[in-house]
């Protein structure tokens, strides 16, 4: 197997509040990202997806946040957590880039899109303004914006939402990074535009050979684009595996719950089942299994002991006591027909 381009081990990002409480937003996340693959990171709001992605770029505001010692984020063999600010800036946007959720607010309203796209090339590759403009023009073409020679001098508010997201992608890819982190890249867009943007990311991935980490709460997006999926709950990875495995043979009740809350065309159902309750506050994760208050199968052991993440099949792992005691499963309780 090839070497992973990004290795994350035991990533812990905590936030210390003024009252002295500690929010363990990301609490021991580990994963590998291989060149050219798409890794989906799914979960509800508040379960640590975005903090994970910000931690990878070390963009977590400090204070109040900090990444615990003992965490490892290794990009192409270099630990990002020990880099100097200067070296870190050389990595950001150059080897590891990120696109944000809201294409409107993530673009500077007073700079033309050409300036914003070219900026990365100026910063990282020392291009002249003229060369950066030429590069920006290429990027606009690459991301499929019609009439790039006209659009290059537009300001963000003159573009539609889908075009803005294309500009964001162009900004992130201007230096051909090895890893692209896409934090809910399609959430703010119409469904038809969503499909176009996902298609675009897919095409660019094939052309440029980068790895994509796709963060989303939309399982439909993940099913269509990701090779592997990590399910996060309460700051931890609760299940991970290849996309077909995860969708067809989910093990963790949380994964099952997520799948059951998505409308499906191929299986007629009368009602969608939601997961009762909400994600607890990151400052007070439940003891034992963090999902037990919402889990339909939970028993005594789940309330006291925290289950480990164990591999149940090659490349498929889950953090649940049901793996050891499958007999405890209450049939039909997760709302998944299998």
């Amino acid at each position, binding site marked *: 197997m090839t070497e992973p381009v990004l290795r994350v081990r035991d990533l812990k990002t905590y936030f210390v509040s003024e009252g002295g409480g500690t929010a363990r937003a990301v609490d021991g996340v580990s994963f590998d990202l291989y060149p050219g693959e798409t890794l989906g990171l799914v979960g509800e709001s508040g379960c640590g997806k975005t903090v994970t992605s910000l931690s990878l770029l070390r963009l977590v505001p400090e204070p109040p946040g900090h990444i615990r010692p003992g965490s490892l984020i290794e990009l192409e063999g270099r630990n990002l957590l020990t880099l100097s600010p200067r070296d870190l800036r*050389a990595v950001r946007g150059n080897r590891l880039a990120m696109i944000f959720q809201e294409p409107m607010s993530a673009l500077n309203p007073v700079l033309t899109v050409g300036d914003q796209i070219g900026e990365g090339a100026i910063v990282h590759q020392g291009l002249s303004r003229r060369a950066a403009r030429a590069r920006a023009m290429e990027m606009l073409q690459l991301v499929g914006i019609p009439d790039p020679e006209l659009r290059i001098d537009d300001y963000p508010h003159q573009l539609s939402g889908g075009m803005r997201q294309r500009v964001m992608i162009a900004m992130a890819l201007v230096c051909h990074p090895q890893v692209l982190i896409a934090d809910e890249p399609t959430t703010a867009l119409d469904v038809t535009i969503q499909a176009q943007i996902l298609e675009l990311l897919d095409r660019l991935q094939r052309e440029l050979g980068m790895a994509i980490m796709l963060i989303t709460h939309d399982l439909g997006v993940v099913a269509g684009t990701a090779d592997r999926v990590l399910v996060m709950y309460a700051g931890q990875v609760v299940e991970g595996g290849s996309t077909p495995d995860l969708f067809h043979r989910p093990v963790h009740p949380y994964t099952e719950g997520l799948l059951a809350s998505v409308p499906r065309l191929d299986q007629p159902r009368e009602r969608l089942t939601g997961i009762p309750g909400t994600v607890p506050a990151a400052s007070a994760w439940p003891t034992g299994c963090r999902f037990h208050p919402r889990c339909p199968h939970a028993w005594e052991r789940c309330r006291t002991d925290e289950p480990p993440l164990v591999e149940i099949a090659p490349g498929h792992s889950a953090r649940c006591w049901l793996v050891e005691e499958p007999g405890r499963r209450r049939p039909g309780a997760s709302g998944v027909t299998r």
Partner: protein
Amino acid sequence: MNGAHWFAIVAAIAWSAWAAQWLRLHFERRQRRATAGTGRRFVRPPGTLIAIGILVFFVTVAVAAPLVTPYRPSRQLDIVRLQNAPPSWGHPLGTDLYSRDTWSRLAYGARVSLAVGLLATLLAATVGAAVGAAAGYFRRWTDAVLMRVVDVGLAIPRIFILLVAAALTAHLPLAALVLLLGLTSWFATSRLVRAEVLTLRERDFVASARALGGGDWRIIFRHVLPNVAAPLIVSLALGIGQVMLLEAALSFLGVGVQPPTPSWGNMIAEGRDQLATAPWTTLFPGLAIVLVVMALNTVGDTLRDALDPRAGAS
């Protein structure tokens, strides 16, 4: 005052009117392009055209003072026959106690008053933007220290600082006056800029710039400060008027611009004893101050409406 001077004055007025019209048209066209399709219509505020005209006129007169005036501002024409002469064709604004031509002094005084106002305000805006951006962007102790300095600055009445400084030096050079005015006028600007930067630094595009490898200075100068330009320009326009008033007050009190260099403030000061007998020596410089300050305030307000980022682009 011969035909050439009158012609130059008429030309200056015509040029001001044309320039004001052109500026307005240009501005409106840009507005319309920026708001195209948003359904927002650019509303022309009343009086802005006149205000721009007034500003262009005084700036033109200041720049072209030798062309539009017949005499040197300090030249005493005829101390016997032309003392406190009322306005006439030869002396359109009359003459003062020393038989100097008021129109000539007004034009050359515009150079001093406008230059002092503009330079001091530019200095204040620069310092204010730098301090405000540093405080708002870096937060923590930088913010705490800088803002306490600003608190102190705002707590001391400015006129006292200026009076003390002026009293300590017998004859205040013009450059020193500009420095003094500029370095005591930036406190409010820095607060304004800091408040803007505080919200801007939390915006996604700043995080995005950081995620793409931008350093702090690049982010401040390229991403944050351009977004503060609109309120800064407005405060600049309003600030020039304030500083001009302050300069006039100081000159009136005798510690600002020193005679015989004419400034609108010290012209009023010198003419105040003849207020009853020769009102034109104080009336016209006073009118000039009022007109320019009002025009600056009007333009400032219009700019505020037009440049308000919350009104456009969303």
